[in-house]
C-alpha cells in the first residue's frame, strides 16, 4: 500500500504585507538584499512570515511542513549568496524565467554556515511537533551550476566542495522527516555525458548526511534517460522527484518503465508557475494516471507536490494550491 504524502518544494511567495514591509526595511537595490546578518527589525519580520507559512500549511493539512524559505532572496542560490566566502556579482537570469538572482562568486573555502539550520530550528519551534518537518536545500549539482567558482579552480573539485558544504549544513539541521534537494539544473543544464557519476556522487554526499527520507526533486521537464538511470541507482535518494506538469510527461513515464525507479517517488502534479488552481480530483487523476502507466505494484511513498517552487505565484494562489494538494492526498485511491 503506497503512502501518499502531500508536500511542497518550499520557497513560498512572501505574503503581500511582507513584500511591502521588507522592501521598505531593506530597499530595492542589489546591495540591499540579504547577506545573512540582518538586524532585529528584519529578523522579526521574517519570523512573522515563517509563522504564517507554518500555520498556512497546517491549516491546509499538508503532511510535511517546510520552513517556507521567505529569506531566500536569491531563490535556491541562497545558501551561497549569504556565505562569508562568497561575493555576489551581477544580477543573472534564474533559469528560463523572468526572475533574477545575484551571481554567487565563490572566493574562498565553503566552510560551515548554519544559516539554513537556524531557520529550520525556528520553524521547528513554531511547529512544536504538530506535523513532521521537511528540510529544503538546493541539490549540490544545481547550486554549483548557479554559482561561479573563483576559488577551487576545477569543476569536479568545486562540485564536490559544494556537496561537502551542503552535507555540513544538513548535519546541523534539527530533526526532520524529509529532505528535499531541489535539482532543476539536472534538467536545465544536465551533466555532460560521462560525468553523470560526478553529479550523483555529489548528491549522495548530501543524502548520506541525514537519516531522513531524501527526495531529489527535478523540474522543468523530463530527465534525459541515461541521467535518469544514474540517479535511480547512484544518488542515494529515497525518492526522485519528477515533473508531470512542464515538458513531456510521456518521456518521464518512459524513463520509469524502462529503468525502474526509486522505492518512493515525488510527483510534480501542481503547476508552480500558473495561477490556475488544480482541482483535488484532477491532481488525484494525475497520480492514478501515472501509477497505472508504470510497472510497479506500489511505491513505499508517493509525495504529491508542485513541480517548481511556489514563489512564482501570487501569494493567494500559492495558498490555494497548498489546500488542493492536501485534499488530493485524501482523494487519491
Amino acid at each position, binding site marked *: 500500500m503506497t503512502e501518499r504524502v502531500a508536500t511542497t518544494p518550499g520557497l513560498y511567495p512572501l505574503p503581500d504585507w511582507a513584500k511591502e514591509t521588507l522592501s521598505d526595511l531593506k530597499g530595492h537595490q542589489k546591495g540591499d*538584499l540579504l547577506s545573512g546578518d540582518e538586524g532585529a527589525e528584519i529578523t522579526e519580520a521574517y519570523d512573522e512570515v515563517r509563522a504564517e507559512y507554518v500555520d498556512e500549511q497546517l491549516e491546509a493539512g499538508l503532511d510535511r511542513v517546510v520552513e517556507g524559505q521567505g529569506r531566500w532572496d536569491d531563490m535556491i542560490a541562497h545558501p551561497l549568496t549569504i556565505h562569508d566566502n562568497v561575493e555576489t556579482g551581477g544580477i543573472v537570469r534564474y533559469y528560463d524565467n523572468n526572475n533574477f538572482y545575484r551571481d554567487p562568486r565563490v572566493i574562498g573555502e565553503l566552510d560551515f554556515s548554519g544559516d539554513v539550520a537556524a531557520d529550520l530550528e525556528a520553524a521547528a519551534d513554531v511547529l512544536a511537533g504538530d506535523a513532521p518537518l521537511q528540510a529544503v536545500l538546493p541539490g549540490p549539482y544545481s547550486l554549483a551550476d548557479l554559482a561561479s567558482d573563483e576559488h577551487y579552480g576545477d569543476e569536479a573539485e568545486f562540485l564536490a566542495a559544494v556537496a561537502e558544504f551542503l552535507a555540513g549544513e544538513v548535519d546541523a539541521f534539527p530533526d526532520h522527516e524529509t529532505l528535499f534537494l531541489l535539482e532543476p539544473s539536472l534538467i536545465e543544464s544536465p551533466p555532460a555525458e560521462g560525468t553523470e557519476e560526478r553529479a550523483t556522487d555529489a548528491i549522495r554526499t548530501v543524502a548520506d548526511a541525514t537519516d531522513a527520507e531524501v527526495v531529489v526533486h527535478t523540474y522543468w521537464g523530463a530527465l534525459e534517460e541515461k541521467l535518469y538511470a544514474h540517479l535511480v541507482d547512484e544518488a542515494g535518494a529515497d525518492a526522485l522527484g519528477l515533473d508531470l506538469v512542464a515538458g513531456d510527461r510521456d518521456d518521464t513515464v518512459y524513463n520509469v518503465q524502462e529503468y525502474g525507479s526509486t522505492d518512493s517517488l515525488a510527483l510534480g502534479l501542481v503547476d508552480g508557475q500558473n495561477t490556475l488552481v488544480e482541482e483535488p480530483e484532477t491532481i488525484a487523476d494525475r497520480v492514478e494516471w501515472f501509477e497505472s502507466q508504470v510497472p510497479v505494484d506500489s511505491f513505499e511513498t508517493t509525495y504529491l507536490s508542485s513541480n517548481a517552487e511556489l514563489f512564482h505565484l*501570487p501569494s493567494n494562489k500559492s495558498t490555494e494550491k497548498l489546500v488542493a494538494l492536501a485534499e488530493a492526498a485524501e482523494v487519491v485511491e
Partner: protein
Amino acid sequence: MVRNPDANREQFRPHDHPNESFLLTTVVGSYPKPKWLNRADELVEDPGSKFDHDHLEEAHDDACRLITNEHERAGLDTVVDGEMRRNEMVEFFAERIPGYEFNGPVKVWGHNYFDKPSVVEEVAYDEPWLVDEFEFTSNVAEKPVKVPITGPYTLGFWAFNEAYPSTEELVYDLADLVNEEVERLVEAGARYIQIDEPALATTPEDHAIVGEALERIVSGIPEEIRIGLHVCYGDYSRIYPEILEFPVHEFDVELCNGGYEQLDVFKQPAFTKDLALGVVDVHRKEVESVEAIEANIRKGLEVVPPEKLTVSPDCGVKLLPREVAYRKMENLVTAARNVEAALDAGELDHVTAPAPADD
C-alpha cells in the same frame, strides 16, 4: 505583407529642417515621472486624502504637457508623452483588456515585484486603450506623436495563461486586439506606431510567433502609417535575419549598452528595413557627449544609408534621473544634426553601408 519604409518617412521631416540629409530622431517611450506625479499616484490611494481621481487626471494631463514639451525642447522630430499615464507596460494594458485579472504581485528579483496578471477567459476588446492619450498628446504637441504599444507576445508571455490551450493562441487573439486599437489610433490621426516586444529578447526562438502576430497587427493598416518594432537587449543573432520578414518599417534595437558588439549581426545579409539605432545608454547616468553620440550614429551608417537611419535612445529612459534623461535627448538631437550637416558637406563617407534594394 511587405512594408516599404520609404513610403512614410518623409512625413516626419520638419518643415524647417536645417539639413538636406534627414536622420529621424525619436524616443522609445517612457520618461522619468516628475516626483510630484508619483506622489499624486500614491495620494489618490490614501482614503484620508481629499485628492481624488479627477485631481489625478488633471495631474496626468499636466505631466503629459510637460514631458511632451520637454521632448520638443530637446528638438526631437517625433515625440511621446513619456508614458506619464502608464504604470507598467503589461499592467496598463491588462487593466484595459477583459479576460485579464490581477491576483497580486509576484517576485521578479529581490524585492522587485510585478503585478503579473492572469488570463482567465478569452480576451476581448472593450474601450480604446490609448486613443484618449494620443488625442491629448497630439493636441498639445507641435511635432508628430509616436504611440508605443506593448506587443501581444509580451502581453501574452508575461501573464499567467489559465484560459488558452497554448500561450501562442493567446498571443494571436491579443494581436487581433492590438490591430483593432491601431485602427482606432489611425482614425484618430496617429501616423507612427511602435510595437514593444521586450519578451522576445528572452525567448528568441519564438520569432515566428512574433512574426505572425505582427501580420495580424498590421492587417488593413495603410502603408503610410509607420510601424516600428522595439526589441530590448538580447542575442540579436538568434532573430536576424528572420526579423527582416516581419511586416514593419523599422526596427528599434538596443546596441549602445553593449558597446555595439552586436552591430555586425545586422550587416549580413543587408538590412532592408529602417534601423532605429540606440545611440545613448539608458542604464548609465553619465550623459554621453555630442561627439560620442556622433560616433555612435556613424556606427548606424555602417548598416544602413542615412535615409534609412533613425536615431533613438537604447530603450525607455524612465529609470534615469530626469535631468540626465533630458540632457541625453538634447545631445542626441545635436549629434544627429551635426552628422546630417557632415553628410551634406560630403565629409562623411556612407558608401560603406550596403546599397538599399532599389528594385
